[in-house]
Structures are given as C-alpha cells and as structure tokens.
C-alpha cells in the first residue's frame, strides 16, 4: 500500500508546484454587487478581488447571507457585477456559458424529464456539433460515473436527495466545462451521503487529470478542508468582503479518516473556526 501511495504523493506535489505556474482560470477584479430592493439599494458584496488558478479547488465559506452565493453567481454569469469585472477562461463574463458548469443548491432537475433526458438535453444544447450517438454515449458515461445507470429512466421525483445531487453533478460534468461551480451542493444531504459524495466528486476531478477548476460554496468547515486547496472566508454581509484566504497544504489524495489526525488539518480547522465564530463556548 505504502509503495502505491508514495509515487502518487510525488506526482501530487509536482502537480501543486505546477499549479503555481498554471494559467489563471478565474479572475475576480474589484467586484461589487448591489441589488435594487424595496428599501433602496442593497450591496451584497463589495470590492472583491480573487484569482483562481486552473485546476484549483476553492471553497467560499461564510455565514448565511454573507454573499458567497452572489460572488459565485458573478462567475457563473447569473448575476452581473455593478462594478468591476469577472474574467473566466480569459473571457469577460457577460452571462452564463457552457465553459462553466453549474450545480445548483436545490439540484434544479426538470421534474418532467427522466434522469437520462435531464442530462441529454443539457448535452444536446451545449455540444451541438456531436452526433446523436456521441451525445448518447456522453450521457451514459457520465451516468455510470455516478453509478446511476440503473436509474436512468426514473423521474427526479422518484430519486433520493443524494441521487438527485449525483444527477446534477453528472449533468454539469457531461458538458465538460473547464470550470465547475457548486452552490452548496451537499447542503441538503445527510452526513453519510455527504461523505461519499465528497469522494465521488474528487474521483471525477481525478479522472479528468485535475484539470477542472472547482469553486464551491459551503458552510461546512470539514467539507471545505477535505476538498479544497484554498478556503476563502467571507465577512458577514451586507457589503461583504473577503476576510481571509486559508491555504490547505494537505497532500492529495486525501483520506477522510487519516486527515483528521494530521496536525495541518487541526491547525487549519482551528483557524477557520476562530475566523467564523467569535464565541466558541458559552463562557466566551
């Protein structure tokens, strides 16, 4: 076992080194987002600057309503910044595009389409040049990657939360985007399902040679550490800003059980806790 682990670790640190020289995948440049509400203007996030390299996994973490979803939506193009700009894959973001796959918070599957059709329609829409047979193969490959082939003809209403989430992830992967945006993807899942979904996600990322950039919104500290290269901690909104960016220097592939005893894990975990909570016990 050790022999197998070693070379991968070497490959990994090489990979990490490579990341430093890699191209920028996402550049968030002085972004402010304000919404016009009933009580005047509301500024969700203010003057945000962030650079994300190709192949990085970055988590955005913060309390509810701190604007982490808003920040991510400026990358997806669902929200346009009131000030500043977002550059993804060297293009100015003007709206949603197929180079950025999105996994929505509430899965957002179309309830009248089967699992297969839900993915097929996305593939059909994005990969226009492929033949029908090629599209069919892509859908089936992605369904088997998330172990959902036996359920391909079911409607979303007949699936469990974890299965729906896997369909949403398979759909985002199927269009082969270079950037994957996950909005609290595992928030609605129980702890056990969540744990195996983390492994599934990293497996998919590995299969693609860790080339995909993944940005994830979460409010789960353990999840953020286990998955990410960097964790972006946000201040409470309104006018939320980035409080601190915490690097996670844990070698990959990470093991859920072993990682918990790693001194680095404990250090990072403590740091994130103290950044997110001012009071850590009732005596504080």
């Amino acid at each position, binding site marked *: 076992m050790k022999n197998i682990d070693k070379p991968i670790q070497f490959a990994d640190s090489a990979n990490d080194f490579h990341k430093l020289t890699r191209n920028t995948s996402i550049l968030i440049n002085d972004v402010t987002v304000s919404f016009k509400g009933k009580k005047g203007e509301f500024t969700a996030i203010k003057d945000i600057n962030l650079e994300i390299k190709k192949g990085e996994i970055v988590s955005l973490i913060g309390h509810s309503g701190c604007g982490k979803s808003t920040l991510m939506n400026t990358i*997806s193009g*669902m929200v346009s910044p009131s000030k500043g700009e977002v550059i993804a894959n060297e293009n100015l973001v003007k*709206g*949603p*595009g*197929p180079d950025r*796959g*999105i996994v*929505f918070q*509430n899965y*957002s*599957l*179309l*309830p*009248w*389409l089967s699992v297969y059709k839900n993915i097929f*329609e*996305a593939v*059909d*829409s*994005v990969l226009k040049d492929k033949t029908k047979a090629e599209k069919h193969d892509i859908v089936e490959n992605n369904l088997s990657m998330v172990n959902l082939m036996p359920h391909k003809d079911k*409607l979303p*209403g*007949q699936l469990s939360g974890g299965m729906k989430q896997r369909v949403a992830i398979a*759909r985002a992967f199927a*269009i082969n985007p270079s950037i994957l945006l996950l909005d609290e993807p595992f928030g609605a899942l129980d702890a056990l399902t969540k744990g195996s979904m983390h492994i599934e996600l990293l497996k998919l990322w590995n299969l693609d040679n860790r080339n995909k950039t993944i940005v994830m919104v979460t409010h789960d500290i353990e999840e953020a550490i286990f998955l990410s290269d960097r964790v972006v901690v946000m201040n409470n909104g309104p006018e939320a800003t980035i409080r601190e960016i915490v690097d996670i220097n844990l070698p990959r592939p990470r093991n859920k059980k072993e990682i918990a005893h790693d001194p680095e894990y404990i250090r990072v975990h403590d740091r994130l806790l103290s950044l997110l909570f001012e009071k850590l016990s009732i005596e504080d």
Partner: protein
Amino acid sequence: MKSLSIKNTAVSALYFIASMAILTGLWTLISIITKNEIPGPLSTWTIFKELASEPFYDRGPNDKGIGNQLFSSLSRVFSGFGLGSIIAIPMGLLMGSSKIGMRLLNPIVQILRPVSPLAWFPLGLLAFKAAEGATVFIIAITSLWPTLINTAFGVASIPQDHKNVGKAFGFSKWKYVVKIMLPYSIPHIITGLRLSIGVAWMVIVAGEMLSGGVGIGFFVWDSWNGLSLERILVAILIIGTVGLLLDKCFNALQTVFSWESK
C-alpha cells in the same frame, strides 16, 4: 391495495346514488307543491323514454330527434371551444412569458372577460351574416378566457430554478419553450381548458335559443313553445349530464398530463 380501491369505488357509487335520491326527492316535493305544474320525475321519465326510443329521427328542419339535437350542439361547442383555445393558448404563452405582454394585454382581458355571450351575439351576426357562425363565435369568445388566464398564469409562475437550467446550459429559445415552458404549464393549460369547456357548454343553450335551427338549446325553446315542460326537464338533465361527462374527460386528461403526481 386493490380491495381498498374497489371499496372506495363502491362507497363513491353509493354516495352518488344517495345524492340522486335526494335530487329526485326534492324534485317530487316541488312537483307536489306546485300541483304538478312542474312535472314530477315519473312523468318526465315517460317522456324521456319516448324521446330516447328514437333519438336520431329527422322529420324536417324543426323536428329532429334528441340525439341529433345533442350532437349538433356538441359539434358547435367543440368548434367554438377549439377556435377559442387556438387563440387563447398562444396568447396566454405570450402574456405569461413577457412582463410587457402581460401588462399590455391584461386590461383587455379583464374588460372583455365578464361580457355576457348574449351581448356578443349581434356582433357575431354582423361579422358572419349567419346564425351558425355567430353561435360558434360567441362560444369561442366567451370560453377562451379561462384558458388564456390559466396559461398566462402557468407560464408566469415557472420557478426561477427551471429558468436557470435553461440559462446555465444555454438552451435555445425553441428548446426552452418545448422542454421547460410547455411541460411546466401544461397542467395549468388543461385546468384552463377544463373551465373553458364548462363555459362553452353553458353558453350553447343561450346561443341556440337566439339562433334557432338544430341543437339542445333550440330544443328547450321549441319545447317551451310547445308547452312541454317534461321535454324541458329532460333537456336540462341531459345538458347537466353531458356537462358532467365533459368535465370528467378533462379531469382525466389532467391526471394524464400532470407530472407533479408522478
């Protein structure tokens, strides 16, 4: 499970029979109170048997069997309803999908919707120069509103989640309409159609009383002139039953097309 559903059906049937018994009882009571000026169920039944024994006879333009009358009414209702729906569904889709469309068209809908079919009749006559066309016209124009309003409401209430799917995966306009807009709003559209067919069926009697010729409405008017209240009562029961059956048909359609219950 199966024995349970049989039990449920049996219970529903019993309730239906009981309900009919109450109706017959009240009817008999009214008949007795009015000293048979309004005929009771028994004498009506005799006339019904007489009418039903030869439903499709044809002895000239003013003397046709009850089946002929009914079918001519139904075909008129369906042409009016069909015409109305062909106008209502696309207009509803348009209204529901654009805020500007909604704000521009909604006042027109609100003004025209409460107008009685009888008020439209002269306009129909003017436009079509014939009673037949005018009848279909008034059915169309009074029955299209529920479909229009329900379709518009359905489209306008498409959840942001579903719209986001279209945006995120770059659905074309056509794909959006076919894969998101229509499937989401079909249950609403069918609810609208169900209400519309009810209105259309209600309008037919008034329309045919004015237009004359053949039809269940004309039959009612003709029976009044012939002073046969039994025939009128038979017609009322037939109109009610057909209305109920039409509603049941659309109800069944609603179950077929509802993705929510699956």
